[in-house]
């Protein structure tokens, strides 16, 4: 176990190194000279002399590897530069907004589990029955429905027409409902189908037959014996899904004016606030890598077979 963890962490080093190179290189995608962009954003006329002076000051005339080294050293000190727009450190801006994004993502996951676990179990227990067909149609619709459209429809119906939920912004629980449903809806459908398939597989296993032969109650068989094992593939898929939720949060935060990292990032794009865009990319990669690491560790704890196997292989 310990050996697996060490290897898993060791493997992260080249990946994070690559991530840092990509993030550093991103600035080259921006049209125009960085020094010129900075001057323009601070309202200074970018004369040739001013641009040259700033280039020298920022070290943009140094070889690329020296620039990268300097940037990397700053990143290790959590210095992601300053936002052109607010003038505050990018890291500070991102950290102060991340709780809002995390709140939204966790709420979406909660909604997703609340819907997908019961419907997945029901669909598996009543295979080819009405519930199963309904869940299939829902899965198809969920995969085809644009999240941003669902968000608009929810706002129109529940906020504008019925006035049940606030239209936008962050606040109490009522503010959280529509954004969380928008973010979690599509994924809930996918997970319900995933759980159904995995439940059906588990229910066909010998130990379930034994449990039935022993006369255990169906509730106990499903709830304790089958569900626990059927949830394993769901846990594996979870790391990937979390990434999709973080990406999806960008759109949901924009629709609902949710003051998270995603909305901050979209605003940065339209303000050509490049350090923020760069910082966002790096931050999201780090969060995603950590979540995947946690999912892997959780998986190892949940499934002793993997624990032994991976310990040997990796």
């Amino acid at each position, binding site marked *: 176990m310990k050996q697996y963890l060490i290897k898993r962490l060791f493997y992260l080093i*080249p*990946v*994070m190194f*690559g*991530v840092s190179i*990509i993030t550093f290189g*991103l*600035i080259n*995608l*921006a*049209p125009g000279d960085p020094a010129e962009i900075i001057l323009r954003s601070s309202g200074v006329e970018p004369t040739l002399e001013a641009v040259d002076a700033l280039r020298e000051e920022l070290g943009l005339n140094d070889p690329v590897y020296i620039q990268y080294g300097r940037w990397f050293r700053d990143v290790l000190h959590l210095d992601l530069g300053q936002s052109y727009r607010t003038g505050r450190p990018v890291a500070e801006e991102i950290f102060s907004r991340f709780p809002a994004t995390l709140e939204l993502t966790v709420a979406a996951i909660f909604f997703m589990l609340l819907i997908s676990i019961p419907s997945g179990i029901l669909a598996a227990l009543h295979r080819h029955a009405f519930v199963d067909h309904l869940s299939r149609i829902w899965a*198809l*619709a969920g*995969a*085809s*429905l*644009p*999240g*941003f*459209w669902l968000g*608009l*429809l929810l*706002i*129109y119906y529940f906020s*504008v027409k019925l006035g049940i939920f606030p239209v936008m912004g962050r606040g109490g629980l009522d503010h959280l409902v529509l954004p969380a449903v928008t973010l979690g809806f599509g994924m809930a459908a996918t997970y319900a189908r995933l759980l159904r398939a995995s439940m059906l597989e588990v229910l066909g296993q010998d130990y379930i037959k034994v449990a039935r032969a022993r006369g255990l109650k169906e509730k106990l068989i499903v709830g304790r014996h089958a569900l626990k094992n059927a949830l394993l593939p769901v846990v594996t898929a979870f790391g990937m899904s*979390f*990434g*999709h*939720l*973080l*990406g*999806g949060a*960008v*759109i949901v935060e*924009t629709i609902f004016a949710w003051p998270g990292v995603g909305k901050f*990032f*979209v605003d*940065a*794009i*339209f303000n*050509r606030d*490049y350090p923020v*865009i*760069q910082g*966002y*990319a790096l931050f*999201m*990669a780090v*969060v*995603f*890598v950590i979540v995947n690491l946690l999912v892997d560790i959780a998986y190892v704890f949940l499934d002793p077979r993997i624990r032994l196997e991976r310990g040997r292989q990796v």
Partner: protein
Amino acid sequence: MSAIYRLARDKMALVGLGIIIVIVAVGIFAPYLAPHDPVQVDLGQKLARPSAEYPLGTDHLGRCILSRLIYGTRVSLSTAMLVLTVIIFISVPAGTISGYVGGRLDNIVMRIIDILLAFPGLVLALVIAGMLGPGLLNVMIALGAVWWVGYARIIRGMVLSVKEKEFILAARSCGTSHSKIIFRHILPNVLSPVIVLATLDMGSLILAISGLSFLGLGAQPPMPEWGAMLNDGRPYMQAAPHLMLFPGLAIMLVVLAFNLLGDGLRDAFDPKGTMRG
């Protein structure tokens, strides 16, 4: 039972295929089908409800929504097709060479893929599009730069398994050159699953493109694009809800059609489910 036969018996897949054929036809014959010019502004007609002249009403600039939807078919389909072509042109060589040659080269390609996969979901595409600035071409570049990774991984896996087959060993022992083995024997075995994968992905790509356009990153005004149309309609939600109803329905219908066909293709070509990843 052959794959085509299996597909022909899948009613849902045929429905998907039918919708796609109709939509492609709508795109091709857009100038004949659209009742109005999609970019013609008529402020006297703005936010009009559906009527005989404007079957789906008009938007905030008095442009015919139906005509914009019809022309939008062209934008969505052609953009997605173009991105897919780019993805295939990057991923097929990368995956094939990586799997076939193996060794250090394979290692390098796989590490690059690992690094790109360290960015969650569409975050890297969003960031690249954000850096390049708003524009449909930039969105296409961003999606192409990120999306090929999954394909390359799957193709590499397939090449690795095909490589060990006896007919490849036979070809090699006859002294067939590597390039001939790749083009004659390996690629034909890899391409049909790639096509299935691409069909499955058309829906997600269309969603991604319209999502980016919805954010204002993709299609720029006055281009009629469904995601951008939804975004345009947002401020008029209360006065004219039909503005955001129809573009959303159009996106959903197209994506649904590709998902139905893709699921059918996958079941037909891959009954054992090896491509489900």
